[in-house]
C-alpha cells in the first residue's frame, strides 16, 4: 500500500516554539479528529500521509521540527533535502511572525535552491487575539521570492490545513511533471524548446 504512489514529497514544518506545527501535522493526518494534546517535539518527528490530487497518488513525508532554538543545528540539516517548507507563525503572537527573516536565512543557508515555501499563519480561530493581519503576511509574501503563497490556518477548527498541503503538493507536482517531461520525453522537450525559441526570436 505505502509504495503505491506517483509522487513523493518531503515537506518540512518550521517556525517558532508553540505556533502549532505539530497540531497542524496531526490535524492533517487525522482529518476531522482533534483530540491529541501534544508533547514538545524534541529534534524532529517524522510522519506521512497519502493524498490524491487529480488521478495521482501523492505520498507526503512530514518532517515536524522542534521550534526550540537550541535544536536548530540539528533541524536545519533536515531542510536540505526538503521539497517544500511550511513556515508557520502564530497570528496571535507578532514575535513569531517577526522571526520570519531568521527562518528564511536558515532556509537559504541549508536548503537546495529549488525549495518552495509557504507562509502559514496558524491559530486564525483566535480572532480577538490577532496581532498579525493577513495583509501583512501577503505583503511579505510578495517580497520574498521563495514564498509561493500565504495562508491562514486553524489546526483547531480544521481551517485550511489540508489546503496548505494540497497547494504545496500541487505546485511540486507541476514542477516535477515539468522536469520529468523535460528529461524524459524528447518530443515534449523539442516542442517546448520550439515554443520558447519562437518566443525569443520574436
Amino acid at each position, binding site marked *: 500500500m505505502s*509504495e*503505491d*504512489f*506517483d*509522487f*513523493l514529497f518531503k515537506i518540512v514544518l518550521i517556525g517558532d*516554539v*508553540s505556533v502549532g506545527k505539530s497540531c497542524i501535522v496531526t490535524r492533517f493526518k487525522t482529518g476531522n479528529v482533534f483530540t491529541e*494534546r501534544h*508533547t*514538545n517535539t*524534541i*529534534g*524532529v518527528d*517524522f*510522519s506521512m500521509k497519502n493524498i490524491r490530487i487529480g488521478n495521482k497518488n501523492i*505520498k507526503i*513525508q512530514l518532517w515536524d521540527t*522542534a521550534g*526550540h*532554538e*537550541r*535544536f*536548530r*543545528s*540539528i533541524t536545519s*540539516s533536515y531542510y*536540505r*533535502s526538503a*521539497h517544500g517548507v511550511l513556515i508557520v507563525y502564530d497570528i496571535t503572537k507578532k*514575535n513569531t511572525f517577526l*522571526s520570519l*527573516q*531568521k527562518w528564511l*536565512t536558515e532556509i537559504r*543557508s541549508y536548503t*537546495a*535552491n*529549488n*525549495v518552495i515555501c509557504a507562509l502559514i499563519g496558524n491559530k486564525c480561530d483566535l480572532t480577538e487575539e490577532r496581532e498579525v493581519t493577513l495583509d501583512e503576511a501577503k505583503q511579505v509574501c510578495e517580497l520574498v521570492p521563495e514564498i*509561493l*503563497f500565504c495562508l491562514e490556518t486553524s489546526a483547531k477548527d480544521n481551517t485550511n490545513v489540508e489546503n496548505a498541503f494540497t497547494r504545496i503538493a500541487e*505546485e511540486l507536482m*507541476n*514542477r*516535477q*511533471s*515539468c*522536469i*520529468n*517531461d*523535460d*528529461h*524524459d520525453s524528447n518530443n515534449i522537450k523539442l*516542442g*517546448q524548446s520550439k*515554443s*520558447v525559441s519562437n*518566443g*525569443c526570436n520574436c
Partner: protein
Amino acid sequence: MTEIEEQLFQANQEREKIVLKYTIGRKNQLVDYWEDPDFGLHYKTDRYGFIHTEDLPKEFDEQEKKEKEIEIQRAQKWLKMVKNWEKFVPLNREKLYRRIYKGVPDKLRRNIWLKMLKVETQMKANEEDLANNKPSVYNRMLQLGYKYSTEIRQIDNDINRCFRDHEYFRERYSTKQQQLFNVLVAYSMYNMELGYCQGMSTITAVLLIYLNEEESFWALNTLMVDKKYAMHGLYIVGFPKLMRFLAHHDRILTKFLPKLKKALDKHNLDSVLYCLKWFFVIFVERIPFSLVLRVWDVFMLEGERVLPAMAYTILKLHANKLLKFKDMDSITEYFQYKLHKNFGYSDNYVINALQTSMSELRAKKLDLPPPAESNEFPKCELGTFIEPSIEKKLGLRSSIFSETEKNVTDLVITRSEENGNDLDIIDENQDDNISNLNTAGSTTPIRRFKSMNSLNTATSIATSVNSISSEFNQNDVDDDISENEYEIVESTRL
C-alpha cells in the same frame, strides 16, 4: 526609550506575566476551559497516574495486580536496605544490583531515587544556610530565576505540553505544574551554561511524580552534572554528548546488528531520528511508562552506559520486525508510537535483555564510547551568574549560527550523506529494491529529482524551471512566476 529598551521592557513584562500565573496557581485565576485536556467522563487512571480514555486490556490489569503482589513481598527487604543504605550498600553491592534489576517496589522508588541521586547529601549542604536564616540555594536560585531567567517563555511553553495525560499535570497551573515551573526556572539559573533545553521538562516531570520540588531540583542537578550521568553535555548547545553517543550507537549496530544497520541506512533512517529522543528523555514516551521506570532505576544504578545498552536492546528485540518493514514511514511509526503503546515484551523480559546487552557490550569493550572531552561539563562553578546575550534577553533567535552549531549541522549532514552514498550504490546495483527506498519513489523521475536535490549538484530543478519560466516571461511578462510554471506544465502536457 530606545527601540531595544522598549523591546526589553516588553520581554520583561511577558516574563513577569508568566511568572505571576505560576505563582498564584490555578485556584486564584480563571483558566480557560480549552487550556486543559478533556478526557470526558469515563477514564481510568493507571497506577502511575496516567489517564487512559480507552479501556485498558484485561491483561494489563492482571499484570498490575501481579506486580503489586510481588512488590509487597519485596518491600520488606527494600525497606531494611533503604534504612541502612549508607552501611548496607558498600558491603552488598551485588545484592543491590540484583535487586534493582529484579525490580524496585513502586512505593519505595522515591526513597531509592533519593539515595541513588544523592539528593539528601546535597540538601544537607544547605542546612547551614537555613540555620543562619539564609534562604536555601534552591530558593535563592528560584527568586533570581523569576527575575532574570531568559528561559521562562520556553519553559512555560513546554509545561503546557508536558504529561497532560497525567493526573498531576493535566490541569493548567496545578500544584505540580507550579513545581515543574519552579524547578526548571531555578535550575536554569543555577546552571546558566545549560539554561534550559527541551527534554529537561520531561525528565523533571518524571522526578516530580516521586519527589517533592526541592528534591527534584537536586535530583535533576545530579543527573546533569554528576559524572555518572553527565546529561549536561547532552543538552548544551552543540550537543557534544549526543554526537558522541550517536557515533557509538552506530558502532554498536555495525558490530552486533549489521544487517539491521544496513536496512536502516537503506531507508535513510539516521540514528539521530530515533536515538535523540531516547537519550534526551531516557526513553520516556517511546516505551511504556512502567518499563521507563525500570530503565530509570537501572540508569540511576549504572549510569550513562545504560543509554547505548538500552538502545541496542530495543533494536535487538525488534530486529526481525524492523527488517520486514518496507519503508521509512513504518519504521519511524514503530519507533515513535507503537513501542510506546505496546512494547511486545514484558518489562521483566526487557530488563533481563538489557542486562545481557550490557555484558555483551562490556565483553567487546563497547559499553561506553570514548571518554568525554571537557566541553561536556560545566566550566563555571554552579550558581555563577553569566550575563545573557541581548537576543536571549529579548527572547529572539540569534541570527547567526555559532561555530559549534555549524559543526553540528555539518556533522548531521555528513551522517545522512554517508547513508545517502550507500543508497546510491544500492540504487545502481539492486533495482528490485528500489521501491523500498524511502527517498526513491516508484517512478524514475522522482528518484532523479531526489538525488539532484540531496547531492546539491546538477542543475537544480528551480534553475531549470526558472530558466524556462524566464524565457516564457518574455512572452507573457505580466503573469507571476508560479502561474507561468503552471502553464508551462499544462502546455507541455498537451
